[in-house]
């Protein structure tokens, strides 16, 4: 049952959530203009369908769902992702993790844009929404095996673009990592 009193008015909803929605939209859409248009669409839908929000605690999750659906609806037919071997997955993991502020934001965005929309959504749910693979599968109505496969391949592609690693450079599984005994 909807508690109208509990759901904030639209202006408050925008004030509270527009930044989170826009950041997510930017990672999905890839440009300021498209991200802003997508964000406006999300709040327009939110304004029209406020009754679907069950509680104030779930507003952000609901807005993210609206965002993902709006993004995927606006996408062209899905493009494939290149098949990757297991070596490719592992070799893209750098020997030493850079601090978050040293990761090139432009490169990250370019790498995301090279992913097909469905993969971009899965990897964004993992990194931005902090969803488990099980939650991703439930929210997207996908088999869990499909989510795990998409997630692994999308993450590996992101890393390969971000860190530009090959098996020789990346401290792949077959090699000793540069930061030996760096377990924390």
């Amino acid at each position, binding site marked *: 049952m909807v508690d109208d009193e509990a759901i904030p008015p639209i202006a408050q909803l925008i004030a509270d959530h527009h930044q989170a929605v826009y950041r997510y939209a930017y990672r999905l859409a890839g440009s300021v203009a498209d991200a802003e248009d997508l964000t406006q669409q999300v709040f327009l839908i939110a304004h029209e369908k406020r009754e679907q929000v069950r509680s104030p605690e779930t507003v952000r999750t609901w807005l993210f769902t609206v965002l993902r659906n709006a993004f995927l609806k606006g996408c062209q037919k899905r493009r494939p992702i290149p098949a990757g071997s297991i070596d490719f997955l592992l070799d893209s993991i750098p020997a030493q993790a*850079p601090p*978050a502020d040293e990761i090139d934001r432009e490169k990250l965005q370019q790498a995301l844009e090279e992913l097909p929309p469905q993969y971009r959504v899965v990897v964004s749910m993992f990194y931005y929404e902090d969803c*488990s693979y099980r939650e991703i599968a439930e929210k997207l109505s996908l088999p869990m095996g499909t989510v795990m496969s998409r997630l692994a391949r999308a993450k590996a592609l992101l890393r390969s673009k971000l860190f530009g690693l090959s098996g020789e450079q990346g401290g792949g599984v077959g090699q000793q990592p540069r930061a030996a005994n760096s377990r*924390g």
Partner: protein
Amino acid sequence: MDQDPTRNPRLIEALEACRPGSNDIDSPEFSPLAAELAASPRLDELYERLQRVDAAVAGAFADVPMPEGLAERILARVLAGDKAKVPATVEGEKSAIARAVEQAVLPANVSQAEAISNRPAAARAAKVPLWGWVSAAVLLIAVGVGVVAYVNSRPSGYAPHDAIDQGIALLLEERTHRPTGPAATADLREDYPLSSELADRVRVLRSREVADFLGEPGVAYDLLSRTGAAATLYVVRMRIPGLPSSPSPFPQPGTQGTTAAAWATDGLVYVFVVDGDEREYQQFFPQSEGEVA
């Protein structure tokens, strides 16, 4: 011989599915991975490294600069309704759709401003003779037909691995709905025929539409071998480079006890998924029949 855990795709996928800074690894569904981590220092080192990298990427993911005045523009659009899209104030930015339309309509080296300023269009249109309009229409139709033909014939861009993954995922989804009992041969679809490799060695239990197989529609046939092994054949009209023209006697092992193979003939891709291991698969395609290159 024990398999190297760092070469096990299922373990690596599970490794990738553990969220940074979470206790995912402690949950029961990850217990096989946890056991392997305890037994393999290499895999454990990989896990720790991946967790650190994922934490850094997650941090970068959320770092997006905010445009000025966004909240006000959103509110203005919401209050005005959908008809009044409120444009962003960022200079030089256009939506991708607007850019694509502009590029498609305007010739190279002609800016939109130039195009608008050179636009006595109504006057020019009135002077175009009838044969000009007919020629333009014929040209447009020809281009349209060409585009459709190109789209239908070009390679999909998917790899054989994608087709097999998709077949296995669909089979696992449908497992609980596996049909029983015979079905009429009328269930065979002319536009998605049963592979000739299978036609005389299986009984078709049922055929059904598949709405989305790697983005294309198709048909699935639930099959029984003469010895009673169950399988599903997915047939879809698309091109996937690298597929053999006939099924291999050596299938790929899939998840949850499935095995699969894919091949392509006459513009159709066949993905054959057996709900069982290699022995069950070979009830459909015995090794003794010869190996496929």
